[in-house]
């Protein structure tokens, strides 16, 4: 896996103030036919990005096509990542260059998939989410700091900040580049003992 381990991200952000962004929008089903994890970034938000599925005709109104907005942080409306369990959505966001997604609400499966790919989902209050959108609207190159060790997200210019929660196990995994599968593989003996006890 690429880009393992996350500490502090200091970057401009891309605003997507749309609610209920489902994983079919993040990566449409027709791109799920690959058998590898790589290369999904070019089709991220495919049908919101291009007119008639054609890269020659980008939809200028869509934020990813606006050169004013770029960075490692995506800021989205509530209930981001709902719908299909496709991990391809997390792969596409990561492959495109995002390391953090901020929203006031994440769908459960998306959240797990993101964490398993070192894409940090940061859940903030509705109020702070609005502050983020307002700050970026005012100045597209607003710098945002996402500090995982201190579980703090802040807007550099205004100093506005908010704490976010993450379970201590996952935090350690993200900071040290550990996967769940490493942990589980170390548990094999306990799992075998458990199987004997239930059968």
């Amino acid at each position, binding site marked *: 896996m690429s880009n393992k381990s996350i500490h502090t991200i200091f970057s401009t952000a891309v605003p997507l103030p749309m609610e209920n962004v489902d994983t079919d929008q993040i990566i449409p089903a027709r791109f799920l*036919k690959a058998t590898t*994890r790589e290369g999904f970034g070019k089709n991220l938000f495919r049908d919101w990005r291009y007119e008639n599925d054609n890269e020659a005709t980008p939809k200028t109104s869509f934020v990813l096509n606006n050169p004013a907005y770029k960075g490692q942080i995506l800021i989205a409306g509530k*209930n981001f990542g709902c719908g299909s369990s496709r991990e391809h959505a997390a792969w596409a966001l990561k492959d495109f260059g995002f390391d953090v997604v901020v929203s006031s609400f994440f769908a459960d499966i998306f959240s797990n998939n993101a964490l398993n*790919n070192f894409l940090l989902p940061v859940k903030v209050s509705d109020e702070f989410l609005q502050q983020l959108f307002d700050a970026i609207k005012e100045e597209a190159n607003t710098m945002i700091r996402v500090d995982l060790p201190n579980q703090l997200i802040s807007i550099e210019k205004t100093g506005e900040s908010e704490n976010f929660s993450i379970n*201590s196990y*996952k935090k350690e995994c993200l900071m040290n580049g550990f996967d769940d599968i490493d942990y*589980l593989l170390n548990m094999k003996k*306990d*799992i075998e003992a458990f*199987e004997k006890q239930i059968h």
Partner: protein
Amino acid sequence: MGKTLFDKIWDKHVVSTIEGGPSVFYIDKHFIHEVTSPQAFKGLSKRGLKVFRPQNVVATADHNVPTLNQHLPITEELSRKQVEALKENCAAFGIELYGLGHPYQGIVHVIGPELGITQPGMTIVCGDSHTSTHGAFGTIAFGIGTSEVEMVLATQCLLQTRPKLMRINVEGELQPGVLSKDIILYIISLISASGATGYFVEYAGSAIRSLSMEARMTICNMSIEMGARGGLIAPDETTFRYLEGRQFAPKGEAWDSALQYWKTLSTDHDAKFDQEININAADIEPMITYGTNPGMGVGITHNIPAVDSMSVSDQPSFIKALHYMGLEGGKPIMGQKVDYVFIGSCTNSRIEDLRLVAGFVKGKKKADNVEVWVVPGSKQVEQQAVKEGIDKVFEAAGFQLRQPGCSACLGMNEDKIPAGKYCISTSNRNFEGRQGQNARTLLASPLTAAAAAITGKVADIRELM
């Protein structure tokens, strides 16, 4: 304090718990399909691992198989490669595959129950969000991502945090013409597409208990559409009768002892839920969606909500959805012309669904302006339909009875709805582009879909029965 049904199953499957973190959670059954498994097998190979418990894994090809001429090689190259990769991986790792041509092939959430693989008290996962379907049997069943598929293949376990619990009680009798699909669409319209995020939902009450197993599966199937991790229903005599005698159900003494355990699987009277919702079954009309998430639904005689009835923060998404759908706020949905009717998907493609539709359609003809696709959930459903003469009813009505697969629910195969066209669909998602680029989906029950097939527009089944 008493235990909930969920707790009883959960507690039995916790191997250990990490302090301040998730639990190592044991999985009894793991279903896999061609789309979300190839990268997981690659991961195993890269680490030099075997599948830990291949006998607990069942595979089928469903998401991108064609629904016509399944005996021929798949023409679409990437789909063919993915289906072939599944075949190779199953052979290499010793996993049973019910692939194309196998008499058990079908949609993963249709075949598990119909083969008796899904049993009360189990923990079940699959790299597919509609795994919640299996909860109808009193199981903890939920969808997972591909990294998690790899974890379960490697260790038969996942790291899971206990979710919050919600109970939804549906009491009373349903109106004629109202199906379990209408119950779940009604619930989602009430609490929204994110109303149960972070929760596992138990469905209870007299209206739920009166439903058949297939109708219960439809409800649990769409739990994910309100954000829930999964949904479940306590097993009862209906469950046991359904399971008895199925291919993989326990037999003889094993059946008796299983039954004894299954009968303990219900929520204790003094158990507590984090949230409870009460619904009167008689309030539910045939439902239909007008927007681009499954929470955007109304009773069929109601108007589409007006834009100014929405809160200011909800308005941009609402306006975008109506614009995509080509519909107007404040106007009736009844009478809306439709172009396609899709009866299928893991939500509504079982034999009872086909029987209901056939019962209504018999002796009628489809409207000239619609194309009607009926896609059975499995080979077994398809064969049963033929045995009962349902295929002849559909043929006479001008419906196409196709071969099993996920089909136009997500349009990964050739079954796509053209841009701008309206499709009444018995599936589970009306997201933008779900059934094809710029396709417009109206979610409804099989009977409401059948009514649209005959009239060519959105119609109230209660007036046609």
